């Protein structure tokens, strides 16, 4: 299983891999926002956390459709389905590798973009923490969509459409945790805890559902 993790990491870094594209997309999306809303620094500081979260959400959807499709196209998926190791473990490890290659760079790039948004240190720290906790949930939810759409020729767009509504709770609690950290009266911990709970919940549900979908998609 460690072999699978490192193989997927290697693939995402090698030529044509999506690791860098995600971060680039994240930066571009966030950089575009000020053109739309105007360069008012106070306004940007206020909406900054939400923009970072939306950017991260979109960026982590980007490479998801290839999660299983690439494996299916070259026949690797068949061999993974046949093994003694339960498929859901394989799916979980693939998700973990995908997150490490695309989600983690987003978390690391977030502070830089926070500066662009004129956010203060506390807001940047809170955004980073919530992204760290919340983005794995997006990957796990996305795995279900990727598994469902695996046999479709143009599944990429469909995955995003399937996954986005499910990822809304993550966005809600992620952003509300950040605002709770910045604004005094609201407590920070409860929304963060709920966010963690969502991630853990989907870490279980996601691989189970994705494995079931993959079994039925094979033909």
């Amino acid at each position: 299983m460690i072999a699978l993790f490192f193989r997927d990491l290697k693939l995402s870094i090698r030529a044509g891999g999506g690791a860098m594209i995600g971060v680039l997309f994240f930066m571009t999306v966030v950089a575009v926002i000020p053109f739309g809303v105007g360069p008012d620094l106070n306004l940007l500081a206020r909406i900054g956390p939400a923009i970072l979260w939306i950017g991260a959400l979109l960026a982590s959807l980007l490479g998801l459709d290839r999660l299983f499709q690439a494996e299916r196209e070259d026949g690797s998926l068949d061999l993974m389905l046949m093994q003694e190791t339960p498929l859901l473990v394989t799916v979980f490890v693939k998700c973990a590798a995908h997150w490490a290659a695309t989600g983690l760079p987003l978390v690391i790039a977030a502070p830089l973009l926070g500066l662009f948004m004129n956010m203060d240190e506390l807001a940047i720290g809170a955004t980073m923490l919530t992204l760290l906790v919340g983005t794995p949930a997006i990957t796990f939810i996305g795995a279900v969509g990727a598994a469902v759409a695996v046999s479709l020729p143009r599944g990429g767009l469909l995955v995003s459409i399937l996954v986005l509504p499910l990822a809304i709770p993550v966005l809600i609690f992620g952003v509300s945790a950040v605002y709770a950290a910045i604004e005094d009266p609201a407590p920070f911990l409860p929304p963060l805890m709920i966010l963690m709970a969502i991630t853990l919940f989907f870490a279980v549900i996601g691989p189970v559902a994705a494995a079931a979908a993959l079994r039925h998609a094979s033909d």
Partner: protein
Amino acid sequence: MRLLAEGLSARRGEDLIFNDISFALSAGEALVVTGPNGSGKSTLLRVLAGLLMAESGSLKLESGPPEMRHPSEISHYLGHRNAMKRELTVAENLSFWKDFMGDSQGGSGKGLVEAVEAVGLPGIAHLPFGYLSAGQQRRMAMAKLLVAYRPIWILDEPTAALDAGADKLFAGLVNAHLDRGGIVVAATHQPLGLERIKELRMTGFSGVGGGMWHDA
């Protein structure tokens, strides 16, 4: 060890592809599945590999490992696609599958260098898989059969895209596997040059009945 198939039938979508296929294979025996295009060879192999559900019938392994759920767990499947990543080197591909699959009971896989030599391509394992020609890629996919031990080999058109020399080399690999007490099921157009083979001719099932929208 004995692989038993009784009354297998399978459908793809709405179509019944084949009906009532039975065979028995003991250790050291090979089954060559022949037949025209569309007769259901690939579908049969995918059923054997556990990738498709059989519509009816059963697939059993006698005196296999005790806590096994499906014979596919101790099988190698070499489909039309090679299951190798173009971006990774041959060695990275092979060592990944070696680690990921592990060995089944009662045997151990060859080392990477040995396996690559066995398919006649020593010295290029450090190259990306994508640099190789189609025939070389197929041979490297066969090396995958050697790095992790599986008693049952399920091979779908294994020698497509291979030249005559590679054909012979492959027959040698399969015979060596049979000598070790393995079981081979292969679908093919060409004669593989194997000894001790049973042949299963698939004629294609042309019946319309049996679909759920028809009164059979």
